[in-house]
């Protein structure tokens, strides 16, 4: 049995279900499945213009793994372009990380759900909190 994959942290999932070419005669025959982590890799490297090391740290994976994900992402998009086929986004091995905060005084990590209004540490009530993974 192979080693399970480390979950790749994805800050925000893509806000579309997919892309479709238009002006082609052939109907929807085929499609490529773009994983959330591949979308995230493209976003971090080519939209946020990060280098691979920074981006890999943000996603909680090693730099070579990031490079591999980025490469498969580019190849899938290229395939979709050239063959004029649909791109569908699928979940993959992603871990959608919500907003986690860390308290500067007691190092506690916590989330703040929508129902809570105060932005303070739930344990020591310190206001010195910082957003992780920004």
């Amino acid at each position, binding site marked *: 049995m192979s080693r399970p994959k480390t979950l790749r942290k994805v800050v925000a999932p893509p806000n579309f279900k997919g892309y479709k070419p238009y002006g082609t005669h052939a109907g929807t025959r085929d499609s490529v499945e773009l994983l959330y982590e591949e979308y995230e890799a493209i976003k971090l490297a080519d939209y946020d213009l990060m280098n691979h090391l920074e981006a890999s740290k943000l996603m909680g994976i090693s730099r070579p793994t990031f490079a591999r994900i980025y490469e498969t992402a580019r190849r899938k998009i290229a395939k979709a372009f050239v063959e004029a086929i649909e791109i569908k986004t699928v979940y993959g091995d992603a*871990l959608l990380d*919500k907003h986690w905060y860390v308290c500067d005084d007691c190092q*506690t990590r*916590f989330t703040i*759900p929508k129902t*809570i209004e105060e932005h303070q540490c*739930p*344990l020591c009530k310190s206001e010195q909190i910082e957003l992780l993974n920004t």
Partner: protein
Amino acid sequence: MKTVITSSGENNLAQFDKRFGRAAWFCVFDEETKETIFIKNTNTNSSNGAGTKAAEQIVSMNVQKVISGDFGPKAKDLLDKFNVQMVIIQDNDVTVQGIIEKLTT
């Protein structure tokens, strides 16, 4: 407002349990009445889905805050969906009593 603290024993002096789904006990602490209730975790020995079941149990108890050492991805998603605040403590040597004292001061 109710808080769940994962505990390794059935009383306030017990060591805080860093696991979430497989914690031995859940200590439910009520901030208004300052009462603690201990509930046994029945999923301790289950081979899978312990985090999900524990999260479901916590959501059904109408708790707003959970204090533990870490949360698995499924438990995170579920607790997040029901607006339960998750708090992660990295300390190894802390008792349930110690956490309650921090919460109330």
